[in-house]
Structure formats: C-alpha cells, structure tokens
C-alpha cells in the first residue's frame, strides 16, 4: 500500500485551478449554508469568525492581476498534525475515505489542534451559534449544528459521501467508492475545483493532481495534504507553495 492510501477505499481529494478562480466567494457561501455555519455575530472579525472555507487574496509587487486561493482544511494524509494531538480522539481520519473528520460532541475545546494546524484551517466557536428570525428554517438537516466552545472545520461534506454510500448500497452496487460532490465544488461558477478519488487512475482529480504545475501548500512539512492547487503563474506558485516569509496577506470572501 502506498503512503497515504486508505484501506480498500478511496482517497478523496480536490484540485483547485487558481487561474480559473475569480474570488467570487460562492464556494465559501455554499460551504457555510451546506454545513450550518451560523452567521457571524456583530463583534466577530476575520480572526475569530467561522469560515470553513475562506478565499485568500494573493498579490505581488509588479503583478497587475491578483490571484485568489480558496483555503480550507487540507485533509492531511500521512502525518495528520491535528489528529495526533487531540487528547480525546475528537479528530478521526476515516480509513475508508481519507477524510479527516471532526467529532464536535467529543471536543473539549482545548484548541491544541488549532495550534497544530499549519494551514490555520480550524475554527473555534467563540460564540453561541445563532440563526436569527426564520433563518433556522434554512438549516441543513443532514448536518448537526455545533455548540459554543468546540472546534470545527471542513469535512469535505462527508454527509454527502454518506448519502452517496447509502444510495449505492440501496442500488446494490458496492464495488467502487461512490462519487459525490462537495458543496463548494458544486457552487463554483468557474469550475475551478475538481473533486474525486485521488487513487482512481481514471479519475480527473487524480490526473490533475499528478499533472505538472500541481502543488500542495507547505508540501515540505510532509503532511500529505489531499488538496492540490494548479496555476501557470510562477509567482502564484512561488507564493502559495512556499513557506513563511514577509508578505501582506489579505483575505476576503
């Protein structure tokens, strides 16, 4: 079994084409709606809000056109930094899908996983979640809401995988890992996100992930992230793929 491959299942991942992303933020909105992320309280800032998926604006001196980088949990594979540190197993890596799951009902809210995550892709519920007025009627019944004081993050819409597995089982076809589409992929108007099984050699996601020009964030740390990025712009690859350096990072979306 090659490194990072799951036991007899799939290894779901995504490839994001940064040259196609126009920073509209539709992915971030779709993610929040799909996963019952509550509206931000009045006092929330970009540092303490809940943004499972945020769109990072990248700029460089002399470059007229900015780039936009959708950033979510990178679904680390080999040495998942957050899973090993959680004191009460509230972070689990599903061996059948490779998805790094968060179990909010077990979470103590110690935030050690947040300190461990190099992508800053984990979020703490600093406030009680609140859906004012009739907003509660928009809640997705497939996803449980979280309480104050626990950590949450992108799950690659694992509830959609569950639904796909159920449908597959009902149809009697259980030979292949089911295909499914996370909300952000579905919402992207530019078709910038390709999602699928990275171990399926015939799949588009696996082909793009292995194609020249694809890279992962902080690859040197060896986290085995399952989110790949693509761009033909050298400065974007250098900025996004490199490590910490002085830079004026700004995010929106």
């Amino acid at each position: 079994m090659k490194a990072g491959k799951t036991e007899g299942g799939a290894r779901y991942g995504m490839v994001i084409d940064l040259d196609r992303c126009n920073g509209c933020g539709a992915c971030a909105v779709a993610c929040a709606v799909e996963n019952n992320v509550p509206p931000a309280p009045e006092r929330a800032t970009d540092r303490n809000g809940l943004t499972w998926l945020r769109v990072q604006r990248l700029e460089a001196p002399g470059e007229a056109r900015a780039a936009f980088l959708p950033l979510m949990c990178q679904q680390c594979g080999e040495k998942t930094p957050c899973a090993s540190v959680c004191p009460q197993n509230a972070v689990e890596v599903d061996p059948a899908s490779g998805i790094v799951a968060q179990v909010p009902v077990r979470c103590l809210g110690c935030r050690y996983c947040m300190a461990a995550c190099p992508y800053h892709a984990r979020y703490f519920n600093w406030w009680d979640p609140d859906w004012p007025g009739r907003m509660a009627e928009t809640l997705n019944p497939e996803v449980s809401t979280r309480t104050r004081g626990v950590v949450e993050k992108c799950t690659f819409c694992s509830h959609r995988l569950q639904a796909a597995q159920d449908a597959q089982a009902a149809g009697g076809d259980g030979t292949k890992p089911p295909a499914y589409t996370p909300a952000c992929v579905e919402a992207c108007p530019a078709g910038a996100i390709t999602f699928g099984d990275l171990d399926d050699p015939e799949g588009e996601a696996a082909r793009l992930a292995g194609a020249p020009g694809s890279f992962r964030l902080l690859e040197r740390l060896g986290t085995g992230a399952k989110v790949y990025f693509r761009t033909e712009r050298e400065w974007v690859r250098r900025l996004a793929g490199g490590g910490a350096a002085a830079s004026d990072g700004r995010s929106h979306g």
Partner: protein
Amino acid sequence: MDERLLPRGLSRAPFGRFLLWLVPWAALLGVGLYAAYLCLALGLNQTNMDNRFAFGLWIYLDLTVIALGAGAFFTGFLLYVMKKRELAAVINSAVVIGFICYSGAVAILAIDVGQPLRAWFTFWHPNVHSMLTEVTFCLTCYLTVLAIEYLPLVLRNRQLKKRPSMLVFEFELHKVMAVFALVGTFLSFFHQGSLGGLYGVLQGRPFAYRVSLAAWPSTFFLFILSAAAVGPSFVLATTWIVSRVSGRVLVKPSVFDLLARVSGSLLLVYVLAKSVDTLVWINHTSFRLGVHPASFYAFAPFGTWALFAEIVLLGLVPALLLVSARTRRDPRLLVPAAFLACAGVAMNRFVMTVQTLALPTLAFDPFLSYTPSWQEVASFLAVVAYGVILYSLSFRYLNLFPQERELAAPKEA
C-alpha cells in the same frame, strides 16, 4: 483573637493587621472571579484569543507557573531521595507553593477550555498519542499528591492536633510521605516533559518542532531540566519574599546556599543542553522542514535578541552567579540571581507559546500580534491573589519553616 490557632512559639502580626493585608488580595480575587464568570457564562469571546492565537496569556502563564511550582517536587526529591536534610527547612513552604501553583493552573485551564464539563472525556476517550493526554493525567495525579502532602501540614495545627484521630492520621501520613514524594517526583518529571513535548511535536510549526530523542522531542527533556533547575531558585525567592514581608528570619543561610548551588549547577547543564538543541534546530531541523532559521527572527519584536536574552542573559548569567560561592554569600546578588533564573524560565515558556503562534506558517500569512483582554488578565490575577491568600493563611496558622522558632529564640533570650 486567633492566638489559639497560631503555632506555638511563633509570633505573628496582630489579627487586625493580618486582615488588612488580606483585603486588597481578596478584592483582586473578587474581580478575577467575576472575569472568570464572564468567560464561563458568556464564552471565550470575552478573551482576545482568536483562531490564530488559539492559546494566549493563560497557557503561557500556566506553563510558567507549573515550571516554577517544580520547586515542590524537586525539593522533595532532594530531601527524600538525595537525602539533603537541610532542605527540611523549606519543604513545607515548597509543598504549599507547589499546591498553589498547580491548583491555580488547573483552575485557569478549566476556564481556558471551551467545554470544561467535558474534561472527563480525556480520561474516558484518551488519545494515548497526544502529549496533552499525558499532561492531563500527570497534572491530575500530581495535584492529588500535592493535596496529600499538604494535608499533614494542616493536621499539625495545634488545635487539630488535640484530636487523637487527627494526630494518628497525620503520623500515618508522615510515614508514607517519602513514597508520595517519589510518586510526585515521577509524575512531575513526566508532565513537565509532556508540557515541553506539547510544542516540540508540532510538525506544522517549524519554530517549535524539535527532533526526537527516544520517543520524545528534545523539548520534553529541556522542560524537565529547566523546571528542576529553576524550582529551587523559586523556593529561594519566595522564602526571601516571605521573610521580607513578615520581617522574620525563616531559614539559615546554609539553606539558601544549598538551594542556589543546586539551582545554579542544574541551570548550567540546562544552558548547555539548550545551546546544543538550538544549534541542532538552527542547522538541521529547520532546514529539513524547508525553513531558513533567520525567518523566525524576521518579525519585530521577536528578533535574535529574544534568543540571546533567553539563553545568555536569563540563563547563563544567573547560572554563573548562582554557582559562585561569593555571590551566594551576598544576598544582594543571590536574590536577584534567583529572580533572573525564574525570569529565564518564564521567557522560555513565552517564546514556546506566544512566539510559536505569532509566526506565520504560510507564505501569504501575516505576522499577528495579540493583547490579552482585561478578563484574561483579571482571571490570572485572581490565581495570584488566591495564592497569596492561601500562602498567608498557611504561614500564619501552620509551621511552614521549622527553623523559624529556633532562629527567633536567641533574640527573645
């Protein structure tokens, strides 16, 4: 008014003056308890921590307080295992300080976690690979041991001693105290190490990540060593403060001398180990993670001065002062040296907790700063106030310094 409760043969301030001393600390405790209530009732949005600064003032001070509280376990180790009998003069005070430090740290942790009522989950669903699990288990066990070590001091109060059952209980506890000291030493060694490992294992944070020796990162051993080195200095510093505040001679100079000698020698070993570790980290570990070590110090205010201050100014300098016989004879140099050593461990814990989180990991991430909210500051000051109050009560009603009576006697004669 409370004369019947005071230890025999020891003079204490009038009851009224003692109450007056407690008033400001009680007020501080009250404000801090209100701040803690706000954090528990309204949530951690009352703090200035955020998703990037997931740990803040509380974790930093917890780590510092626990390192300083190591004076309790290490004095016990020196007394009961290494048979340094002179330290019987400060062991009671060291146990009270250790109990205050650890109970205060646990109280702050209970506010710091988002779901304190789920704390028992760690015992029920433990992730044995997590350093925080080790910390939780050892901290809980050691706090229990400290409470058991504190109990005989209370039972020796002259009013409680009048009850035969209490006397017997105290006698039986005393017989097994060496065992508890050993258990406490093991637990404390282990969790000091786990606290260091907490950061050393963070492969996603190249600034904190360290190579492993056996199963643990080097910070595991450095935290044990630094806590053991600074613990005796903290016992020395607190004994000096109590002596100044109470206006009494509490221990013989030879006790200070021994504490300083042990602290200085261990601090020298620590500074050497820390220097080797830093060189390995600069020349090997950070490059292996693809980071140039200079980038760690590219963001003000964390320049290379921080590294210099931590290792040389607050490490090597107090170590040399404490091992020097001439310094140890002069309280004007000895006491500042002990304080410097304590500041060194505080600086190390600050660097590991705050600087680690302030530094960006992604190239497009900005360097961020964080200022604690008044609720964070007040909650921690409540622990300081609780410590002062509990120590003051212990000093007044229990015999914390067995040499005090003997040292006071010639004056009365």
